[in-house]
């Protein structure tokens, strides 16, 4: 049997994207828990998830250019499978309302939505659902007040969008399977 000449060593790109995905995976499988990203900001998520197979909407032109640099097509919000939004404004919420939610027939067509938020201060929320043993309470700030009713209206399980909220170098995941009660 031929042996590889040396033990394979991941390059910086592989280390970064592997760690970013691990944070996203853990965040989504344990909703409400914060996980550290290797680098702050949304560009790292774009690098980890996006390529020429993706259709992206960004409301930030600088980030849109970065996403396009990975080969993703820039499309209107209603056709995007990944959306990078500012959810602290009514305009951001209006775009979120257009995000594809898939259907019971094709739940995988529901979008992944990525936004900034402040963790640990602001609106108190109670989360229940898969990934949470009983319930977990979190506080999220810098988000428009209409977000949670909008999410409840759009996420008709198994259809819906999956939300990643980023606060500097940390991420929390709110999959469509999570029930959010505004306290």
């Amino acid at each position: 049997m031929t042996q590889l000449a040396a033990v394979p060593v991941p390059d910086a790109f592989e280390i970064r994207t592997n760690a970013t995905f691990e944070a996203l995976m853990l965040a989504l499988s344990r909703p409400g828990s914060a996980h550290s990203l290797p680098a702050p900001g949304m560009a790292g998520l774009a690098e980890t998830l996006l390529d020429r197979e993706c259709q992206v909407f960004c409301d930030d032109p600088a980030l849109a250019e970065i996403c396009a640099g990975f080969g993703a097509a820039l499309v209107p919000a209603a056709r995007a499978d990944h959306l990078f939004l500012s959810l602290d404004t009514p305009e951001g919420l209006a775009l979120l309302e257009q995000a594809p939610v898939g259907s019971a027939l094709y739940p995988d067509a529901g979008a992944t939505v990525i936004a900034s938020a402040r963790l640990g201060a602001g609106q108190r929320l109670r989360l229940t659902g898969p990934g949470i043993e009983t319930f977990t309470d979190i506080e999220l700030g810098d988000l428009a007040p209409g977000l949670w009713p909008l999410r409840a209206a759009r996420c008709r399980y198994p259809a819906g969008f999956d939300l990643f909220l980023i606060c500097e170098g940390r991420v929390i995941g709110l999959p469509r399977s999570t029930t959010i009660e505004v306290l």
Partner: protein
Amino acid sequence: MTIATLTKPWQAFSYGFLDASAKRELRRKMLKAIAVPGCQMPYASREVPMARGWGTGGLQVTLTLLKPSSVVKVIDQGADDSVNAASIRSFLSKVSGAAETWDTLAATLIQSRHRIPEERLRADQVLVLQVPNPEPLRPVEPNMSVARQMHADADYGRLWLILYEQIVRSGRIMQGASYPALVNGRHVMTPSPIPRWDLPKLHMAQHLTFLSAGREKRLYAVPPFTRVEPLVFSDVPYKVEDHAALTCHRSGVAGYFMNEIPQDGGGSVFELSDSHLGIKAIRRRDGEDVALGATWYENGKMPR
């Protein structure tokens, strides 16, 4: 964006065998699988140096998660030392530099064919199950488009019909492995051909489980603390295999899932199916200081 800017410098080898675009596609699908527990998500299923049907689905998920600090355990029907398990484990370590282990407690990533270890998995461990047939509805609906519509409608009545027919024909439910289970109260999944004994281990577990079928190009997940309820009738409770009273003839341990080994003359003896638990029990009996983890089953019973 041009082809030139998308092109990466030449490398002799992609870390973890899969190229970056294959990993990104798997990542996107794995996130969707976590978001809708038990729902089968299609993925591209690339070529790997192994024939489809030998664990290529599990292998691709494992390769996507691997990093140099990973500790990998691979089991085949409970055994770490079978040809299939040993080959996959050595391949994983060869392409990633990850450490290999037989010990469930030491592993961070466990790829398994048809068993879940007897020792409880922790929150920091990920279980990857290889799945030959991901579609629980296939015995009742061979047309996959119709089956998809049935999943969309949560139309699972015919699965109960199969179980009912087994009771009528044989007096009990004969479904030995791949027992269908309702995940998060919405999607029925097949938990891969794990024995009935192992299915309760997925219910409200600490760990994340991925189930991936390479030949069928579908993957699905059971996140931690997710309800996994086997399909049963209210008057016919779920029964695991009757192994609680069996004793392993090599280690003397009782109360776990056993392999039956036929003997000359018609009798049979039993040995632990989770081979490394057996090895640890034998070492401990012989006076070595070996840690046995807490197990799901205690005295042959799953605590409720």
